[in-house]
């Protein structure tokens, strides 16, 4: 009986985390479209509800009532599994995100590795969807995304090593607390820029949205999907984007800590600061989508392997030698 109690408590905790995440994913889609429209001097979605806030809800309703079409020559099991995998992976990663020093679902030792692992697994949803559709455009999209995500993971991994050198721990709360005196965005600013661009590529956002480049590939790996399954891909994608923003906020912008450590700011709960930082990063994501044209595939690969990888590796050497010679290495 006691065991069941613990299980129920955990389930409540998970629901308290996941429901806000899902709602904010819907809101963030609206924000994305509004920012996009704002840059292009349009109105964007403004009809459903106040300021069009309920637009995503209306879209979701539309997707739910549409028929799910499964192509007859597709591999049915994998075809259905693909959106589920995308969605699940985007959501389980939120388990380790700390909203304050105590408000975290699972405060594990290797939190940052867990985040990195889950975000690198995200490619499977796309590959499975693309392959199982048994059609040319989805397959090309899936292959492109596999190459793209594997390439940019490498630079994200090296950037994480940079931050870890300054922290001396893999725990996400320790990473936040290590930024008490100075956010890592100041000493590691070039790494922050590279992290931001790599996060764009990792989440298949424009200007790196080659897996679903509509001009060449119709809709890439999503071409054969419809109804709720398409919506799940879409939700998973945006949950992943939010996750990447959260990762950037934790690694570089001081996570749940207030920007200035003085009285009125410290009253605000950590969760609010984290959400504000995530929103700031997300608005940057949305602005990039509106401003920058899409990359060509070889340019994308060149940027990942020939520019970002050497740059971030050099920065690892620089950081390590700086910390070593000035005796700043975090030893415990």
């Amino acid at each position: 009986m006691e065991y069941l109690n613990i299980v129920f408590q955990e389930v409540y905790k998970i629901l308290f985390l996941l429901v806000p995440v899902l709602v904010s994913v819907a809101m963030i889609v609206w924000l994305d479209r509004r920012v996009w429209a704002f840059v292009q001097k349009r109105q964007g979605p403004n009809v459903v509800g106040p300021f069009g806030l309920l637009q995503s809800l209306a879209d979701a309703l539309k997707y739910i009532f549409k028929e799910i079409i499964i192509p007859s020559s597709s591999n049915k099991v994998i075809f259905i599994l693909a959106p589920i995998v995308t969605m699940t992976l985007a959501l389980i990663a939120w388990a380790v995100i700390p909203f304050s020093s105590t408000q975290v679902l699972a405060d594990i030792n290797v939190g940052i590795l867990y985040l990195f692992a889950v975000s690198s697994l995200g490619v499977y949803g796309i590959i499975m969807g693309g392959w199982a559709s048994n059609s040319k455009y989805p397959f090309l999209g899936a292959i492109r995304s596999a190459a793209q995500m594997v390439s940019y993971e490498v630079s994200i991994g090296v950037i994480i090593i940079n931050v870890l050198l300054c922290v001396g721990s893999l725990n996400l709360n320790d990473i936040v607390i290590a930024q008490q005196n100075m956010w890592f965005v100041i000493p590691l600013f070039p790494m922050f820029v590279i992290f931001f661009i790599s996060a764009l590529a990792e989440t298949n956002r424009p200007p790196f949205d080659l897996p679903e480049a509509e001009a060449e590939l119709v809709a890439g790996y999503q071409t054969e999907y419809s109804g709720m399954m398409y919506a799940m891909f879409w939700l998973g994608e945006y949950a992943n984007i939010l996750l990447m923003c959260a990762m950037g906020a934790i690694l570089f912008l001081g996570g749940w800590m207030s920007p200035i450590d003085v009285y009125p700011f410290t009253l605000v709960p950590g969760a609010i600061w984290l959400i504000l930082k995530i929103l700031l990063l997300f608005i940057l994501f949305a602005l990039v989508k509106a401003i920058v044209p899409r990359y060509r595939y070889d340019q994308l690969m060149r940027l990942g392997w020939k520019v970002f990888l050497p740059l971030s590796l050099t920065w690892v050497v620089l950081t390590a030698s700086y910390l070593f010679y000035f005796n700043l290495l975090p030893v415990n």
Partner: protein
Amino acid sequence: MIVHAIFFYTFSIIAVVSAIMVTASKNTVHSVFFLILDFISISCLFIMIGAEFLGMIMLIVYVGAVAVLFLFVVMMLNVAQQKNQWFAGEQSSRHIPVGLIISTLIFFEIIIVIGGWKYKPEIFDINNSLANTNVSNTHSLGQILYTDFIHVFQISGMILLVAMVGAIVLTFRQRSGLKRQSYIKQISRERAEGVEVLEVHSNKGVKIDD
């Protein structure tokens, strides 16, 4: 303890069954997916014995990178067709002895390791500091790898690097007639080089090539 056992048996049964399915399933892509499932359940087992660093690295390296490339290759090749040719022709019988030799070798290796572990445990008892539970296993791994075993560690890194360079050199082909984009050349182009004003005489035209 019971919960622990339930989780252990769940993960290990999934691992064993999916390992069998890797070889048993007809569709090559399916067998790669089973391989991924196998990796994931093995890393869950690693986490269960408290080796969370190894488990996560397993996920990142094998599932996040190696298996993606496997899938990539398997999807690109037309394996189904090739397999039919293999099993239909006499070629397939040539591969059986090689496979048999390798599998017997692996079998004896495992027997030697397990036998040594069981009857001479002091050989494998390298360092007692690993048993120190106050340090997280990331720290203790680092402390051992970068002190006692630094040379072995560096040499294995070098071997991997050499293997990587070798693989690239072996598959590298210099193709002729390839147009490469040079960003510096494009950006530093002046108007004078790109544009030329010509007087065009009627019925003669201009030569635009070269």
